[in-house]
């Protein structure tokens, strides 16, 4: 990707100051890990281990876009817009299926460290995962040779960004009236030792991606997206190191979370449909 010369990049080498406080922070995290022992089963934010954060969803937040959605999980805030199908640029051969063009971007101020304006490797990876998660749900044969643009912007990231992005993008696609086989909802889960944490926050995610010296403990993160009506997993993404039993157990929990989120997404969409219908009815009556 060409670098943007017009934008002032700031000092070439600058380091976020928070990394220097990491030595004390690490101890804190270790403390947090101990407190998330299965025995004392509350987390820092007062949730139980297998408790999902409360979700807020809204469609039609961007008036310029064909469809849009906003999702909020406590401090994780994601906005997504979907645009009309357009021709795939620089494509010579005929493609039978339409394409999804997904761009996932963290806002520069969304994380503890500043993000650059250009898409970095992590964002590209997440974009690809997002695309893979949505592809099975969209009736891509209905728009051959075209691509639907999906732009996801993470306004604030506090863990579960990918899961939130998938749910948000799925909702935005439905709001844009792009034909879909099903709605897609996603959930994430963190594993640290024997502890499974649903919908981990940023801090907990960091904890799960580290390995503690208590030999061979499981650790890692899993994100799963699901088409609720057909119980089909559209994407699964795991990092870390786990045993097969641990993965299977996590999957069961994740599918349950996705199924819990599904009716919320449905209700949100029904509300937007009812709103547009009643709005249309008003001028007819007058």
């Amino acid at each position: 990707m060409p670098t943007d010369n017009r934008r002032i990049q700031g000092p070439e080498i600058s380091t976020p100051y928070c990394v220097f406080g990491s030595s004390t922070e690490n101890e804190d995290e270790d403390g947090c890990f101990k407190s998330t022992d299965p025995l004392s089963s509350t987390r820092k934010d007062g949730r139980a281990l297998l408790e999902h954060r409360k979700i807020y969803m809204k469609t039609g937040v961007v008036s310029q876009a064909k469809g849009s959605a906003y999702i909020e999980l406590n401090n994780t805030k994601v906005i997504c817009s979907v645009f009309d199908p357009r021709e795939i640029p620089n494509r010579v051969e005929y493609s039978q299926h339409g394409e999804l063009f997904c761009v996932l971007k963290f806002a520069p101020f969304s994380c503890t460290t500043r993000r650059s304006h250009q898409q970095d490797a992590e964002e590209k990876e997440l974009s690809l995962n997002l695309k893979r998660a949505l592809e099975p749900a969209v009736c891509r044969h209905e728009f051959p040779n075209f691509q639907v643009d999906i732009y996801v912007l993470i306004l604030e990231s506090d863990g579960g960004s990918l899961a939130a992005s998938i749910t948000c993008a799925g909702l935005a696609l439905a709001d844009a009236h792009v034909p879909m086989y099903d709605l897609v909802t996603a959930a994430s889960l963190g594993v640290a030792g024997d502890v499974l944490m649903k919908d981990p926050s940023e801090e907990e995610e960091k904890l799960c991606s580290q390995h503690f010296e208590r030999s061979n403990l499981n650790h890692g993160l899993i994100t799963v997206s699901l088409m609720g009506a057909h119980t089909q997993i559209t994407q699964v993404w795991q990092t870390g190191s786990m045993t097969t039993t641990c993965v299977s157990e996590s999957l069961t929990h994740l599918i349950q979370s996705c199924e819990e989120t599904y009716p919320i997404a449905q209700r949100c969409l029904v509300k937007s449909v009812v709103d547009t219908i009643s709005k249309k009815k008003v001028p007819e009556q007058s």
Partner: protein
Amino acid sequence: MVKSTSYLFFFISFGNFLSVYFIFQNDLRNDGRSKQDYRPIELELDIVTHANGSARVRLANTDILVGVKTEIDVPTSNRPEEGKIEFFVDCSANATPEFEGKGGQDLATEIGNYLGSSFASPLSFDLKPLCILKGVQCWKLYVDILILECGGNLFDAVSLAVKAALYNTMVPRVETVAMDGGNVDLQLSGDPFDCWRLDITNIPCLVTLTKIGEHLIVDPTAEEEECSMASLVVAVTESGRINSLCKTSVGSLHPQTLTDALKVGVEVGVGLNKALNEALGREEKRLQSNKPERFGFLK
């Protein structure tokens, strides 16, 4: 001070092909394999003279060449005690005309990303030994993956080649480290054979499971990949742990299929790791016997 340092090694290697076979009992596929059979795998170590470690893996028609270069870098500020590893995949148009121009770029990023995430855990690859001086100097491993020919199942072949190349990698031994004001003075061993090897025991192998109809198969050929709707890539270590898991193609899976696939994947992955280790051992022995005789008074 030279910022990045490279070392040359002259190992002469003759082509020695080793084959790894898996035989399971099941119904047959187009080429006579059962569902969980791999195609013959050929492995060659140390074939690039200018790389610190290299390997070539040929899985039927898929040909992968991996070279590892070690260079000196500054550790990141949030991980001062760790070295670095980076993967670069090159899908050149040599392999298949589809990769022409920017065609292979997406696939290259996908493979690179996925290797990155399967190496992310310290339980698969520990980056701590790569640290030279905490917060100041560390080794950075550049793993460059070249796809020479594409005959299906790139993920598995690439991971085998990467593991083999890392096994073969020689990191020069640092004799002394001195701080001279703000600068670091590294004193490397004068003997080009005085190196240490990386620990590869926990590095996972990737196993691609492809669903065709109701069947789950491993090691799909290019034709089989065309037929499939969904495939799953599992990173399995020798001890049977799952270090990464990802769905790679369009299409979705039922949760039950996914759990079944995991079981099959782990089983196959453990076998694959074992076979690779055996092959590496044999290849290493052969290389040792070919090691050039060292002469000279001041050894």
